[in-house]
Protein backbone atom coordinates (compact mmCIF):
# COMPACT_ATOMS: atom_id res chain seq x y z
CA UNK A 1 0.00 0.00 0.00
CA UNK A 2 1.30 3.46 -0.85
CA UNK A 3 1.47 6.05 1.89
CA UNK A 4 -0.79 9.08 1.55
CA UNK A 5 1.75 11.83 0.59
CA UNK A 6 3.24 9.50 -2.00
CA UNK A 7 -0.18 8.86 -3.41
CA UNK A 8 -0.95 12.56 -3.59
CA UNK A 9 2.30 13.21 -5.44
CA UNK A 10 1.57 10.56 -7.96
CA UNK A 11 -2.00 11.55 -8.56
CA UNK A 12 -2.71 13.73 -11.54
CA UNK A 13 -5.80 15.84 -11.39
CA UNK A 14 -5.78 17.18 -14.93
CA UNK A 15 -6.84 14.76 -17.67
CA UNK A 16 -3.82 13.53 -19.62
CA UNK A 17 -5.84 13.09 -22.82
CA UNK A 18 -6.84 16.75 -22.85
CA UNK A 19 -3.28 17.87 -22.15
CA UNK A 20 -2.08 15.74 -25.06
CA UNK A 21 -4.72 17.28 -27.31
CA UNK A 22 -3.60 20.80 -26.43
CA UNK A 23 0.03 19.82 -27.00
CA UNK A 24 -0.81 18.35 -30.38
CA UNK A 25 -2.70 21.48 -31.41
CA UNK A 26 0.65 23.19 -31.80
CA UNK A 27 1.85 22.66 -35.38
CA UNK A 28 5.47 22.60 -34.23
CA UNK A 29 5.32 19.56 -31.99
CA UNK A 30 6.27 16.50 -33.98
CA UNK A 31 6.40 13.47 -31.79
CA UNK A 32 5.33 13.53 -28.15
CA UNK A 33 6.99 10.98 -25.89
CA UNK A 34 4.76 9.04 -23.52
CA UNK A 35 6.27 10.38 -20.33
CA UNK A 36 6.25 14.04 -21.38
CA UNK A 37 2.46 14.38 -21.27
CA UNK A 38 1.94 13.57 -17.57
CA UNK A 39 4.97 15.72 -16.76
CA UNK A 40 3.47 18.73 -18.51
CA UNK A 41 0.14 18.00 -16.82
CA UNK A 42 1.86 18.02 -13.45
CA UNK A 43 3.75 21.21 -14.34
CA UNK A 44 0.43 22.83 -15.23
CA UNK A 45 -1.00 21.88 -11.86
CA UNK A 46 2.03 23.44 -10.18
CA UNK A 47 1.54 26.52 -12.34
CA UNK A 48 -2.11 26.94 -11.33
CA UNK A 49 -1.13 26.52 -7.69
CA UNK A 50 1.68 29.02 -8.04
CA UNK A 51 -0.37 31.62 -9.94
CA UNK A 52 -3.35 31.61 -7.60
CA UNK A 53 -1.15 31.79 -4.50
CA UNK A 54 0.71 34.76 -5.97
CA UNK A 55 -2.64 36.40 -6.69
CA UNK A 56 -3.72 35.87 -3.10
CA UNK A 57 -0.59 37.66 -1.90
CA UNK A 58 -1.49 40.60 -4.13
CA UNK A 59 -5.11 40.70 -3.01
CA UNK A 60 -6.23 43.61 -0.87
CA UNK A 61 -7.60 41.74 2.14
CA UNK A 62 -6.00 38.30 1.81
CA UNK A 63 -9.45 36.75 1.52
CA UNK A 64 -10.76 37.64 -1.93
CA UNK A 65 -8.88 36.98 -5.16
CA UNK A 66 -10.15 39.05 -8.07
CA UNK A 67 -9.39 39.17 -11.76
CA UNK A 68 -7.51 42.40 -11.16
CA UNK A 69 -5.05 40.64 -8.83
CA UNK A 70 -4.25 38.12 -11.56
CA UNK A 71 -3.91 40.79 -14.23
CA UNK A 72 -1.56 42.73 -11.97
CA UNK A 73 0.80 39.76 -11.72
CA UNK A 74 0.67 38.96 -15.41
CA UNK A 75 1.37 42.52 -16.44
CA UNK A 76 3.98 43.13 -13.76
CA UNK A 77 6.26 40.07 -13.81
CA UNK A 78 8.44 39.19 -16.76
CA UNK A 79 8.02 35.45 -16.76
CA UNK A 80 4.26 35.80 -17.12
CA UNK A 81 4.71 37.71 -20.34
CA UNK A 82 3.27 34.80 -22.33
CA UNK A 83 -0.08 35.47 -20.64
CA UNK A 84 -0.29 39.16 -21.44
CA UNK A 85 -2.89 38.71 -24.16
CA UNK A 86 -4.77 36.04 -22.22
CA UNK A 87 -5.18 37.95 -18.97
CA UNK A 88 -5.16 41.64 -19.97
CA UNK A 89 -5.77 44.33 -17.42
CA UNK A 90 -9.27 45.64 -17.43
CA UNK A 91 -9.62 49.29 -18.24
CA UNK A 92 -12.49 51.72 -17.91
CA UNK A 93 -14.31 53.01 -20.96
CA UNK A 94 -12.84 56.45 -20.24
CA UNK A 95 -9.33 54.97 -20.39
CA UNK A 96 -10.21 53.17 -23.59
CA UNK A 97 -11.36 56.39 -25.24
CA UNK A 98 -8.15 58.09 -24.16
CA UNK A 99 -6.10 55.22 -25.54
CA UNK A 100 -7.87 55.32 -28.87
CA UNK A 101 -7.45 59.08 -29.09
CA UNK A 102 -3.76 58.71 -28.32
CA UNK A 103 -3.22 55.99 -30.91
CA UNK A 104 -4.95 58.13 -33.52
CA UNK A 105 -2.56 60.96 -32.70
CA UNK A 106 0.35 58.53 -32.93
CA UNK A 107 -0.78 57.44 -36.35
CA UNK A 108 -1.00 61.04 -37.50
CA UNK A 109 2.59 61.79 -36.57
CA UNK A 110 4.41 59.87 -39.32
Amino acid at each position, binding site marked *: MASDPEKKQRELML*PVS*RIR*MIMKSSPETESI*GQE*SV*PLIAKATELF*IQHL*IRKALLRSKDGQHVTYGDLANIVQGIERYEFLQDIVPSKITYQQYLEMMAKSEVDEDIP
Partner: protein
Amino acid sequence: MAEQPEDLNLPASVVNKIIKESLPDGVIVSKDAKIAVGRAASVFVLYAATSANQVVTSQKRKTMTGQDVLKAMDTMGFPEFINPLKEYFEVFKKGKERKKEDAARKKRAKELEKESQETEERAFSPPLEASPKSSPKKSSPIKKSPRKSVQNSPKKRSPSKSPSKASATASAMETD
Protein backbone atom coordinates in the same frame (compact mmCIF):
# COMPACT_ATOMS: atom_id res chain seq x y z
CA MET B 1 -10.96 15.55 -37.87
CA ALA B 2 -10.44 19.06 -36.57
CA GLU B 3 -10.75 19.55 -32.83
CA GLN B 4 -13.42 21.82 -31.43
CA PRO B 5 -12.15 25.00 -29.79
CA GLU B 6 -13.57 23.92 -26.43
CA ASP B 7 -11.44 20.78 -26.60
CA LEU B 8 -8.44 22.99 -25.99
CA ASN B 9 -9.75 24.20 -22.65
CA LEU B 10 -9.03 22.37 -19.45
CA PRO B 11 -12.09 21.15 -17.55
CA ALA B 12 -13.26 23.97 -15.30
CA SER B 13 -14.24 21.63 -12.48
CA VAL B 14 -10.70 20.25 -12.19
CA VAL B 15 -9.11 23.69 -12.44
CA ASN B 16 -11.44 24.99 -9.70
CA LYS B 17 -10.55 22.03 -7.51
CA ILE B 18 -6.82 22.71 -7.88
CA ILE B 19 -7.42 26.39 -7.10
CA LYS B 20 -9.38 25.49 -3.99
CA GLU B 21 -6.76 23.03 -2.74
CA SER B 22 -3.97 25.56 -3.31
CA LEU B 23 -5.49 28.23 -1.08
CA PRO B 24 -6.28 28.32 2.64
CA ASP B 25 -9.86 27.67 3.62
CA GLY B 26 -12.23 30.60 3.40
CA VAL B 27 -10.48 32.40 0.55
CA ILE B 28 -12.90 33.38 -2.19
CA VAL B 29 -11.85 33.54 -5.83
CA SER B 30 -14.06 35.54 -8.15
CA LYS B 31 -15.65 33.81 -11.10
CA ASP B 32 -13.78 35.76 -13.78
CA ALA B 33 -10.51 35.10 -11.95
CA LYS B 34 -11.20 31.33 -12.04
CA ILE B 35 -11.94 31.47 -15.76
CA ALA B 36 -8.77 33.47 -16.34
CA VAL B 37 -6.69 30.90 -14.42
CA GLY B 38 -8.18 28.11 -16.56
CA ARG B 39 -7.31 29.93 -19.77
CA ALA B 40 -3.85 30.74 -18.44
CA ALA B 41 -3.33 27.04 -17.66
CA SER B 42 -4.28 26.03 -21.22
CA VAL B 43 -1.80 28.53 -22.61
CA PHE B 44 0.80 27.26 -20.16
CA VAL B 45 0.39 23.74 -21.60
CA LEU B 46 0.94 25.08 -25.09
CA TYR B 47 3.86 27.21 -23.97
CA ALA B 48 5.48 24.26 -22.20
CA ALA B 49 4.96 22.02 -25.23
CA THR B 50 6.50 24.60 -27.55
CA SER B 51 9.43 25.23 -25.21
CA ALA B 52 10.11 21.51 -24.78
CA ASN B 53 9.91 21.10 -28.52
CA GLN B 54 12.54 23.80 -28.96
CA VAL B 55 14.83 21.75 -26.73
CA VAL B 56 14.12 18.70 -28.89
CA THR B 57 14.81 20.42 -32.21
CA SER B 58 17.92 22.17 -30.86
CA GLN B 59 19.38 18.73 -30.21
CA LYS B 60 18.24 17.48 -33.62
CA ARG B 61 15.97 14.86 -32.18
CA LYS B 62 12.34 14.16 -32.89
CA THR B 63 10.64 12.76 -29.82
CA MET B 64 9.93 14.85 -26.74
CA THR B 65 11.11 13.12 -23.56
CA GLY B 66 10.58 13.84 -19.89
CA GLN B 67 14.02 15.41 -19.68
CA ASP B 68 13.08 17.87 -22.41
CA VAL B 69 10.05 18.97 -20.41
CA LEU B 70 12.21 19.48 -17.32
CA LYS B 71 14.68 21.54 -19.31
CA ALA B 72 11.88 23.61 -20.80
CA MET B 73 10.79 24.70 -17.31
CA ASP B 74 14.16 26.38 -16.98
CA THR B 75 13.95 28.26 -20.27
CA MET B 76 10.36 29.30 -19.46
CA GLY B 77 11.46 30.91 -16.21
CA PHE B 78 9.96 28.34 -13.84
CA PRO B 79 13.08 26.59 -12.54
CA GLU B 80 11.47 26.05 -9.13
CA PHE B 81 9.10 23.56 -10.77
CA ILE B 82 11.95 21.26 -11.76
CA ASN B 83 12.53 19.64 -8.38
CA PRO B 84 8.90 18.82 -7.59
CA LEU B 85 8.54 17.58 -11.16
CA LYS B 86 11.58 15.35 -10.81
CA GLU B 87 10.08 13.91 -7.62
CA TYR B 88 6.81 13.32 -9.40
CA PHE B 89 8.66 11.74 -12.33
CA GLU B 90 10.43 9.29 -10.02
CA VAL B 91 7.21 8.32 -8.27
CA PHE B 92 5.47 8.06 -11.63
CA LYS B 93 8.13 5.71 -13.00
CA LYS B 94 8.12 3.65 -9.81
CA GLY B 95 4.36 3.46 -9.94
CA LYS B 96 4.54 2.17 -13.48
CA GLU B 97 7.16 -0.42 -12.54
CA ARG B 98 5.11 -1.44 -9.55
CA LYS B 99 2.08 -1.93 -11.73
CA LYS B 100 4.11 -4.13 -14.07
CA GLU B 101 5.53 -6.11 -11.15
CA ASP B 102 2.12 -6.52 -9.61
CA ALA B 103 0.73 -7.84 -12.87
CA ALA B 104 3.69 -10.23 -13.26
CA ARG B 105 3.38 -11.40 -9.66
CA LYS B 106 -0.32 -12.05 -10.05
CA LYS B 107 0.33 -14.03 -13.21
CA ARG B 108 3.02 -16.06 -11.49
CA ALA B 109 0.80 -16.70 -8.48
CA LYS B 110 -2.00 -17.88 -10.71
CA GLU B 111 0.28 -20.25 -12.58
CA LEU B 112 1.67 -21.63 -9.33
CA GLU B 113 -1.80 -22.11 -7.96
CA LYS B 114 -2.81 -23.97 -11.07
CA GLU B 115 0.30 -26.13 -10.86
CA SER B 116 -0.21 -26.96 -7.21
CA GLN B 117 -3.82 -27.82 -7.91
CA GLU B 118 -2.75 -30.15 -10.70
CA THR B 119 -0.21 -31.88 -8.49
CA GLU B 120 -2.83 -32.23 -5.79
CA GLU B 121 -5.16 -33.88 -8.23
CA ARG B 122 -2.46 -36.21 -9.52
CA ALA B 123 -1.16 -37.32 -6.14
CA PHE B 124 -3.97 -37.55 -3.68
CA SER B 125 -1.85 -37.02 -0.58
CA PRO B 126 1.13 -34.77 -1.32
CA PRO B 127 3.62 -33.87 1.42
CA LEU B 128 1.76 -31.31 3.51
CA GLU B 129 4.75 -29.03 4.25
CA ALA B 130 5.65 -28.40 0.62
CA SER B 131 2.34 -27.27 -0.82
CA PRO B 132 1.64 -24.10 1.24
CA LYS B 133 4.99 -22.65 0.14
CA SER B 134 4.31 -23.02 -3.55
CA SER B 135 0.79 -21.60 -3.44
CA PRO B 136 0.69 -18.00 -2.16
CA LYS B 137 -3.03 -17.91 -1.50
CA LYS B 138 -4.40 -19.25 1.74
CA SER B 139 -7.10 -21.19 0.03
CA SER B 140 -5.05 -24.35 -0.43
CA PRO B 141 -4.23 -25.00 3.27
CA ILE B 142 -7.91 -24.51 4.03
CA LYS B 143 -8.80 -26.95 1.32
CA LYS B 144 -6.39 -29.42 2.77
CA SER B 145 -7.74 -29.38 6.29
CA PRO B 146 -10.86 -31.45 5.58
CA ARG B 147 -8.67 -34.02 3.86
CA LYS B 148 -6.53 -34.15 6.97
CA SER B 149 -9.57 -34.82 9.09
CA VAL B 150 -10.64 -37.51 6.64
CA GLN B 151 -7.28 -39.17 7.10
CA ASN B 152 -7.62 -38.95 10.83
CA SER B 153 -11.21 -39.98 11.07
CA PRO B 154 -10.80 -43.67 10.27
CA LYS B 155 -8.50 -43.91 13.25
CA LYS B 156 -11.12 -42.31 15.45
CA ARG B 157 -13.86 -44.42 14.00
CA SER B 158 -12.02 -47.71 14.31
CA PRO B 159 -12.22 -47.84 18.11
CA SER B 160 -15.92 -46.95 17.90
CA LYS B 161 -16.42 -49.73 15.41
CA SER B 162 -14.96 -52.41 17.62
CA PRO B 163 -17.43 -51.89 20.45
CA SER B 164 -20.26 -52.14 17.95
CA LYS B 165 -18.70 -55.35 16.68
CA ALA B 166 -18.32 -56.45 20.24
CA SER B 167 -21.88 -55.52 21.00
CA ALA B 168 -22.97 -57.33 17.85
CA THR B 169 -21.13 -60.40 18.98
CA ALA B 170 -22.52 -59.82 22.44
CA SER B 171 -26.06 -59.61 21.11
CA ALA B 172 -25.37 -62.67 19.01
CA MET B 173 -24.20 -64.38 22.08
CA GLU B 174 -27.36 -63.28 23.88
CA THR B 175 -29.60 -64.74 21.21
CA ASP B 176 -27.76 -67.97 21.42
